[in-house]
């Protein structure tokens, strides 16, 4: 169980970081998404892994799994989902304005900052 979770977090993080370092917007967005998946699983696992236990302590339960990371990860999922949507829209806007989806900014920019 621990091995599966740990390797999947590691794999997702590695893939995410590799993709973030690419030059084009689409792989970078995928990379950010993968990284946020890895983060979510990691936060989830930070309350220790427990199988088949109730999340809330009741009077008759002898053991329980920590519910706080689950609440945290729920918040994190919502936030990362919204942020990814914003990122996709800004990337789309940049693509439509510039005609390419390269992420890097050229040194001497053609745009004047249209002040």
């Amino acid at each position, binding site marked *: 169980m621990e091995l599966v979770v740990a390797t999947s977090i590691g794999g997702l993080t590695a893939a995410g970081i590799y993709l973030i370092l690419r030059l084009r917007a689409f792989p970078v967005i995928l990379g950010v998404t993968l990284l946020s998946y890895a983060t979510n699983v990691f936060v989830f696992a930070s*309350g220790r892994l427990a199988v088949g236990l109730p999340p*809330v*302590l009741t009077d008759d339960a002898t053991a329980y799994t920590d519910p706080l*990371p689950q609440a945290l990860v729920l918040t994190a999922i919502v936030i990362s989902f919204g942020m990814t949507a914003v*990122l996709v829209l800004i990337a789309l806007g*940049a693509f439509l304005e510039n005609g390419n989806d390269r992420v890097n*900014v050229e040194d*001497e920019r053609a*745009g004047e900052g*249209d002040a």
Partner: protein
Amino acid sequence: MNHWIIAPVVLPALLAPLIAYVMRYDIALQRVASITGAVLLCAIAFGLFMLSADGSVHVYRLGHWPAPFGIVLVLDRLSALLILLTSVLGLIVVIHSAASGWDQRGRHFHALMQFQLMGICGAFLTGDAFNLFVLFEILLIASYALTIHGGGKARLKAGLQYVIMNLAGSSLFLIALGTIYATTGTLNIADLSLKVREIPVEEAGLVRVAAMLLMIVFGVKAALFPVQFWLPGTYAMAPAPVAALFAIMTKVGAYAILRMHTIVFGPDAAPIGSLSQDWLMPAALITIAVGAIGVMGARRLMPLIAFSVLGSTATLMLAISGFSPHTTATALYYLVHSTFAAAAMFLIADLLLSRREGGDLLKAVPATVQNGFIAALFFAGAIAIAGMPPLSGFLGKLLVLDALRFADYAWLVWAVVLAGSLLTIVGFVRAGSVLFWKSTSAELMPPEEDTPDEVTPPANRIGPALAAPSVASLACLALLTVFAGPVMRHMESTAAQLYDPGDYVAAVLEDQHDTKKLKEEEH
């Protein structure tokens, strides 16, 4: 429980949707609402500042839940100071954006501005590490939209970089919080303060990792080497009022380091020791160098200012890296200075560039800005940000250098700060002479004459509403200089409170007689 503590978060949070939906089609109404909101925020912030000035720590328990379980907002001297700073800066920026017409170049400027203020005030107030993450996201998502306000190729591309950088930073933030929770079992800052100090040194590896991960995350916000790359591009491309507001955004990172790495991961916590200092100081020194070199290398005005802001923020981080009450007091003084100086510079640059042919490219163009008033403002702003007398930049740097006199590698710190200041001065002198002197030689214009063939519609004359924000930020710097003594005394007591977390912890964890009784462990 004083309900005013949550007002700096609630007021903008209520105002923003109203502006966005009810006043959607009426820019005049939006401006009135936004400026009124900013004035009210200033008043509330001043009230809170007075409330906390006696050194008491005020806690606001959301939903009356007891502390390690419920979320708390904590008002102490540091958060009150920063909220006051934010609200004054917010007012200045809102007035400038209304007077210069920036708020009409895209939609929902004022609503986003209010959300931004909400996130920043919340981040300064919260006493919970995960809540800090959430409020960071609020201020970031508003800043994403503000960065690309007005649109345009280069701005969208710079905005894209900014978003990607911060999304990666947010992931790192969550990983750090997960690590902290896994090792300590709490995310309440006061509770963390106790729990981290209970960890035996030989088992502290994970906590040290978490502390350094957090430092990287806050370093991204504060634009510290090696994660400073987003700042020059973003600030140079962002609309000028937004860039001015962003002067406080880097300070959010500085604040978070000040808060977390003193109360929780302070030098007195055995598992951490001098770890924060060992990494923060070299990073700050390199960032100062990067900023100075960038100022020298910049071929446009906006990147030049952005790089000088980078250097200014790095000087602040250098002062923080002293991690002692005295160095932190000087850091706080420099923080206030750095915020207003950066804001003033961006606002003045906006006045200048909206009247200049050829945008912000630093080469001689036909004279359009030979306006003595703008030149004087630019001169004052450049003096402030480069740290020359008589304005507070000089005092601030002097205080920082003096406080770091006995630090390790003091000679290196002095050399880097002084050389960086010199290069910044040279860079601004060069920019100023190109902007205001060399341009006249192209066409023999009398210096104070308005040119008829302007590219941009606003008249060369600057009305009082347009001049007021820049003048106000410079006036704040002047006040900071004149009242340096009392201000420094307040900063000393603020810093002393920060390094004596006993009151903070006691206020959050012990004094909770009025909270709900917990039947179970959960809420």
